[in-house]
């Protein structure tokens, strides 16, 4: 897209050029117009998620490779068409006829499945983990540790997977970015909303079969928390125990 973009006479170490502050962390973006990044065809982002911070689901039009530089946490990706293989049926008691059993039967009718919740795979993250994310796949992170979770990501803007322009363009499913996509020229003054915000609430209500008030809630219009929010209360998503959390097996 840029003629002579790799005619580099000098290289320099780069610091982030934009910082997006959120309720429970910040997102630091390097200037992808910097000559060496433009030549490489990549953009670079650093996510700093505080303890109990949740980076709300978003996706890119590019492939993304991430590295956990510090901390630990949880990550979920939603891959189109894949089943919800993590399922919690703990509300059921085998043969139970008590209150919990009745509650479970009600929820079974409600969901048609018999599970309290079910969702796609959730993975534990720790320092050193490297995460590949295909374009268009929504991803979220949660910091369940006591220190900040720091994740750095490279976005392959020049790959044929990215069929938009050479700008990093996050699509947010939830939350918002009041500062806007300041790294995209011409967008400096526009706050970035989540993608549900763009649809009429009545359309969302019909698509999700919910009331219009809840549909408006999905648009996060009165929400100033940014894209990393603080989780109130427990974050009890279904996930397998870590190896170190498993009970010691008895040896024969």
């Amino acid at each position, binding site marked *: 897209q840029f003629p002579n973009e790799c005619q580099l006479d000098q290289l320099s170490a780069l610091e982030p050029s934009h910082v997006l502050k959120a309720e429970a962390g910040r997102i630091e973006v390097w200037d992808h117009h910097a000559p060496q990044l433009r030549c490489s065809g990549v953009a670079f982002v650093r996510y700093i998620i505080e303890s109990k911070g*949740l980076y*709300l*689901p978003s*996706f*890119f*039009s590019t492939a993304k490779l991430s590295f956990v530089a510090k901390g630990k946490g949880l990550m*979920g990706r*939603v*891959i*189109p*068409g*894949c089943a*919800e293989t993590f399922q919690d049926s703990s509300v059921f008691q085998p043969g139970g006829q008590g209150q919990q059993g009745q509650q479970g039967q009600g929820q079974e009718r409600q*969901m*048609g499945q018999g599970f309290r919740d079910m*969702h*796609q795979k*959730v993975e534990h993250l720790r320092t050193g983990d490297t995460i590949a994310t295909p*374009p*268009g*796949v929504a991803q*979220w992170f949660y910091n369940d540790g006591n220190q900040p979770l720091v994740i750095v990501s490279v976005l392959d803007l020049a790959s*044929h997977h990215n069929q*938009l322009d050479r700008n990093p*363009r996050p*699509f*947010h*499913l*939830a939350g*918002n970015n009041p500062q806007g*996509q300041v790294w995209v020229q011409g*967008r400096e003054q526009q706050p*970035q*909303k989540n*993608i*549900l*915000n*763009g*649809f009429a609430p009545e*359309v*969302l*209500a*019909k*698509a*999700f*079969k*919910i*009331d*219009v008030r*809840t549909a408006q*809630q*999905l648009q*996060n219009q009165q*929400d100033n928390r940014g894209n990393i*929010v603080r*989780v*109130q209360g427990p*974050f*009890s*998503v279904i996930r397998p125990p870590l190896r170190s959390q498993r009970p010691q097996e008895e040896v024969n």
Partner: protein
Amino acid sequence: GLEETICSARCTDNLDDPSNADVYKPQLGYISTLNSYDLPILRFLRLSALRGSIRQNAMVLPQWNANANAVLYVTDGEAHVQVVNDNGDRVFDGQVSQGQLLAIPQGFSVVKRATSEQFRWIEFKTNANAQINTLAGRTSVMRGLPLEVISNGYQISLEEARRVKFNTIETTLTHSSGPASYGRPR
């Protein structure tokens, strides 16, 4: 060896046969896709196609193309279409009718609702195996997210999150007319 390979490669397929539909709901319509699994030459061209035909008030649930741009050409009828960009702005909100073209970039979310007796369109996609991701429905991104993520992300109760996640059981096509089942699970 060209005669039995390149020269004889199958280059044609028909997308107008409802009996070959990939998504079919008698009351709502059908959708058929043509990608490199059906027609291998498309792998070389890096293109694919989708044919849709829906009846009045049928809705194609909101979705985005994960790995392709799309160009939608209306062959019959009319529909109301909304398109949302990466900034969360509605960049198209209007009627499209026979003979009109609408380009939908990668990642942009789109919802279509037929406003005429029949709405039929052809969509060309710039990937041999274009993939969509839906926002609502049984195979949607919402179904893949834990309730806690939905609840914290939208500041709604777990019960409301459960409705958002589970109320729509369809995957692609749904009715858009009539009263929504406000707050009541289907």
